[in-house]
């Protein structure tokens, strides 16, 4: 995935001086260049891309904290390594969205401190119900996130699949990762959790609310 982007500030600069630009891309440690037929700061639908990146960033941040909470309770049990591995993947996702956020000058959601605490609480709380509870939480959250990514991919494709190709690829890969986590959760007896369907519904409602708020605030 990373090899699709050129990490070369010289080339980026040469690309930029060719024509008038309103904004300049930061070329500090992380310089990303999207091919010139793709997304640039000037030709994208900024409000929509803003929302997409903001909510996805918030989502990955929240997922990080959920896994952190689960690890805090179940880290030293047999299911610890499984959760750790899923957590590492979420860390990668968050890193990617941090980069995208800087590149496209997107404002992060102001609710981040709240998602910090709420995510950890959710992860730790469900983990206290046992490893099945933690897996049920994973299943619920990953299902919500996959559906959400699918919606975003639909929106981007409806608008301009060529222009948003790189972003679509990123979201697709992340969606596939989340579906994998969902399946891992099911494999590890998520459905045996206490009040599984109630728990799952409640968590998914919370996810929907979080998505709604993070897009806007």
């Amino acid at each position, binding site marked *: 995935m990373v090899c699709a982007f050129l990490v070369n500030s010289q080339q980026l*600069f040469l690309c930029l001086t060719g024509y008038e*630009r309103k904004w300049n891309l930061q070329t500090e440690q992380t310089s990303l260049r999207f091919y010139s037929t793709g997304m640039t700061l000037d030709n994208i639908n900024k409000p929509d891309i803003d929302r997409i990146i903001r909510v996805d*960033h918030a989502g990955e941040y929240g997922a990080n904290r959920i896994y952190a909470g689960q690890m805090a309770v179940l880290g030293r049990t047999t299911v610890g390594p499984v959760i750790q591995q899923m957590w590492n993947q979420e860390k990668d996702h968050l890193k990617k969205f941090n980069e995208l956020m*800087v590149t496209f*000058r997107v404002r992060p959601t102001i609710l981040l401190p709240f998602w910090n605490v709420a995510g950890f609480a959710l992860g730790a709380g469900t983990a206290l119900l046992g490893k099945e509870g933690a897996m049920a939480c994973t299943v619920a959250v990953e299902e919500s996130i996959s559906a959400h990514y699918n919606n975003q991919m639909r929106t981007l494709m409806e608008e301009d699949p060529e222009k948003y190709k790189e972003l679509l690829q990123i979201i697709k890969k992340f969606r596939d990762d989340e579906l994998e986590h969902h399946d891992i959760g099911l494999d590890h007896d998520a459905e045996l959790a206490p009040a599984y369907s109630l728990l799952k519904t409640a968590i998914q409602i919370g996810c929907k609310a979080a998505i709604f708020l993070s897009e806007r605030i």
Partner: protein
Amino acid sequence: MAAAGSLRRAGWGLLRCPPVLRCPAQRAFYASALMRRASDEQKQELPPSSSQQRYESHPPGDRPDQEPQRSHHSYTDQGGEESEDYESEEQLQQRILTAALKFVPAHGWTADAIAEGAKSLGLSVAAAGMFHTDGSELILHFVSQCNSELSNLLEQQQKLVQLGQAEKKKTDQFLRDAVEARLRMLIPYIEKWPQAVSILLLPHNIPASLNLLTSMVDDMWHYAGDQSTDINWYTRRAVLAGIYNTTELVMMQDSSSDFEETWHFLENRIADAMTMGHTAKQVQSTGEALVQGLMGAAVTVKNLAGLNQRR
């Protein structure tokens, strides 16, 4: 025929409400009166986009009657009656406001200045009727222009740094220079600026002026190299906005030569902000160390009590 054409243009004017200038209902009425005038000074411009940055081609008060020739905008496709170098209502407004800036030191930020500006372009004085009587649009136009100018300046500086022709500044020096550069744009109008600030604080202007302030502060931090993606994003911008506003207030009361006291004040505020940032980091790391210490103590106690066994 001409009347129908002008009414249609006025109608389009109502539809294209820019975020900075609002569309009072009487605009359409006066717009139709203005549409019949000498066409020799009409040049073509890009259509105003919904972004606030569209003023970047206009240095404040400079060459108000010359615009760079650009491609025809899409509004001429809407009817065969418009000529090829038709100027939209908003472009006209921009030109009038830019021309009016020259008269602000004499007349203040009022409809009088706008009327004088219109007169200087060869238009009727009634053109000032297109705008609010309190001069808000003139001030917002000016602030927007200054912000675009600042943006261009910072971008050029960044290009020089990337080319290796200039040294990269430290954050506090960069912010100091950026705020100073931006405030210096107020110097020609400093006498009447308190009036402008009070108008910008009127409730109906607050959304627009807040928008301009936040986008300016965001620009400054972006070019300063801010890459934060957490709550720091907000705190940094809030702090810089506070510094900018207080320095602006000091500047309005400053009578020293070349506003030395203002820049001195600015330097102190930025130093304060940097110290605050460092202190916050130190508090955080101390807190973390403390928490780790407590966790270690808790684990020790659990070990001693025999509670720490692998499940």
